[in-house]
């Protein structure tokens, strides 16, 4: 029985981080109809920033205030997003997809190098926070408390986003722009502002995903490209542009991965692509998506 709880925690842990990455990707697609291939790099950027702020600048500190520095990575990723959306991406919304994909592919390459330039080749992490929280006893098992914090943050981010989109004025503007940009624009919505805000929120989520993992895991070069492929699987399963889809997609991927690792370790990798392929076969727009 206890082990089921542990497995559930593991699945939720993975799903929380995936939801933050894929949710951001999906949000951006939903509003701007652009698939950002550099999205995984924003996740990596969040991880590197938080790891260097918490793990390097304040390396000796044991203060509890350090927890408040975790979102530094999310803020950094959001700032970068707020910078590249108006300067680079905006001119591509009316252009064919191949150009959108390629410009973000170019950004991916540049960001990958930029992180190496700033942080060097070695993995960095911020483990003091992970250790500080210690472990929790579940029957015969002990489990890191920090992982539960990650799950909580993932859940809270989901609730917050839901509230933002369905319960605020900004959410109304966002949904209006997403459904019909021209009409929203005609009705006096500042579409450009909505775009930059939506993109920034999407990047913030990706950055937060990276930021919350570094106390327990580490920031390594190349993590962004891997994360992007996983996020793709999530949005393919859940439906591109759907936040509920991202949530369910992340949960499905989290659970399937946990089951695969503990029962068919050989399939850890392949099974995720297979789910994506099968879902696409049955429901091309994903479980929660709408076909264009």
């Amino acid at each position: 029985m206890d082990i089921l709880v542990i497995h559930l925690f593991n699945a939720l842990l993975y799903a929380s981080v995936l939801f933050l990455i894929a949710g951001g990707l999906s949000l951006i697609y939903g509003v701007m109809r652009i698939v950002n291939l550099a999205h995984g790099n924003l996740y990596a950027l969040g991880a590197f920033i938080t790891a260097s702020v918490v793990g390097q600048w304040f390396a000796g500190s044991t203060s509890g205030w350090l927890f408040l520095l975790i979102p530094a990575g999310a803020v950094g990723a959001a700032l970068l997003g707020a910078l590249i959306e108006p300067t680079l991406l905006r001119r591509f919304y009316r252009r064919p997809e191949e150009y959108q994909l390629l410009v973000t592919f170019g950004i991916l390459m540049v960001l990958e190098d930029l992180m190496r330039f700033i942080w060097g080749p070695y993995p960095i992490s911020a483990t003091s926070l992970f250790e500080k929280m210690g472990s929790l006893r579940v029957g015969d098992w002990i489990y890191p408390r920090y992982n539960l914090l990650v799950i909580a943050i993932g859940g809270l981010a989901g609730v917050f986003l839901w509230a933002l989109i369905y319960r605020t004025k900004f959410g109304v503007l966002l949904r209006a722009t997403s459904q019909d940009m021209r009409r929203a624009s005609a009705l006096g919505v500042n579409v450009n502002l909505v775009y930059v805000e939506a993109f920034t929120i999407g990047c913030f989520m990706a950055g937060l995903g990276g930021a919350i993992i570094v106390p327990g895991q580490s920031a390594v070069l190349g993590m962004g490209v891997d994360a992007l492929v996983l996020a793709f699987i999530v949005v393919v399963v859940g439906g591109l542009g759907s936040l509920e889809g991202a949530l369910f997609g992340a949960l499905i991927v989290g659970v399937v991965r946990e089951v695969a690792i503990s029962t068919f370790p050989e399939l850890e990798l392949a099974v995720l692509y297979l789910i994506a392929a099968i879902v696409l076969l049955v429901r091309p727009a994903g479980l929660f998506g709408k076909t264009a």
Partner: protein
Amino acid sequence: MSEIALRIPAARRSPLRIVVWAAILAVILALLPLVMDSYRTLQLAYGLVFAVAGLGFNVLLGYTGLLSFGHAAYFGLGAYTVAFMVKYLHVQSMELFLLGTVVSSLVVTAIFGYVCVRYTRIFFSILTLALSQVLWSLAFKFFWVTGGTDGLRVPTPRLVGIATSESEDKIQFLSHNYYYYVLVIFLLAVAVVWLIVHSPFGKALQAIRDNETRARFVGIRIRSYRFMAFLLSGVFTAIAGALWVPLNGLVTPDAMVWTFSGEIVFMSVLGGFRNFTGPIVGAIVYNFLKDFAVGATVYWQTLMGVVLIALVIALPTGIVGTAKLVAATVRRRLRS
């Protein structure tokens, strides 16, 4: 509309004139190894191989309007087909390799194509990407068959039944005998693809690209045409993969990974995918460019990334498209 206004329709030229131009180009390509060092010749051989892949890829992107982000799978499939034929069937003949590649790629693209052509736009891109990653993870996982990350080695093949002796210099072989072999296949591929895209079938593909609904309403069965285009595209890309293996000497799952698919897209856009010659020029230039970047700096990714971003912003029609536009402007100026 604005992008259409930028372009000029290709003038209808007599096939004779095109054949003459192609022949001149072929002669130049055939003479280049005599004046270039063996290293540059090898680079050109790589460029021609990728050009074959680009030609195939562009049947889908440029002519059918479908952006595949999974073409590395077919390239890698061709490469692995050759490696399997060496390992399990002890075949050495390059012609048999090419034949085997055509067969294997027909089977796989038929399955993938059947699935993929039901969708368009970004859904098509993501589906092709996901399916290519399935192949990649199989190549990666089934190491007892594929060698996993170690990959599979491919020795010097027999060309038109002539074996090369062990003692012969491999670089000499690759930059001469094999270069000309690649050149011949490349020219054949150019001829075949050119014919296909200029056939009524090719016109139908372009019609589907431009306007799916209207294409249906002139009586074209969209899906089966897309499926045929998918097959053609996959087979030519797989042939490129088969040609590439002897040059590289080894195939690993890297040849199937999605970022390599991105590079194939990069090449086509670099040359200009709305022109027949675009992907050819793009593949050759890309090859020299990446080679230069990797040699010049450890931050080669930044260099390539900046080139890509600058390209899509400033020269969306690629090298060939831009060159045509410049030529047309100059001609207009001269006339007035």
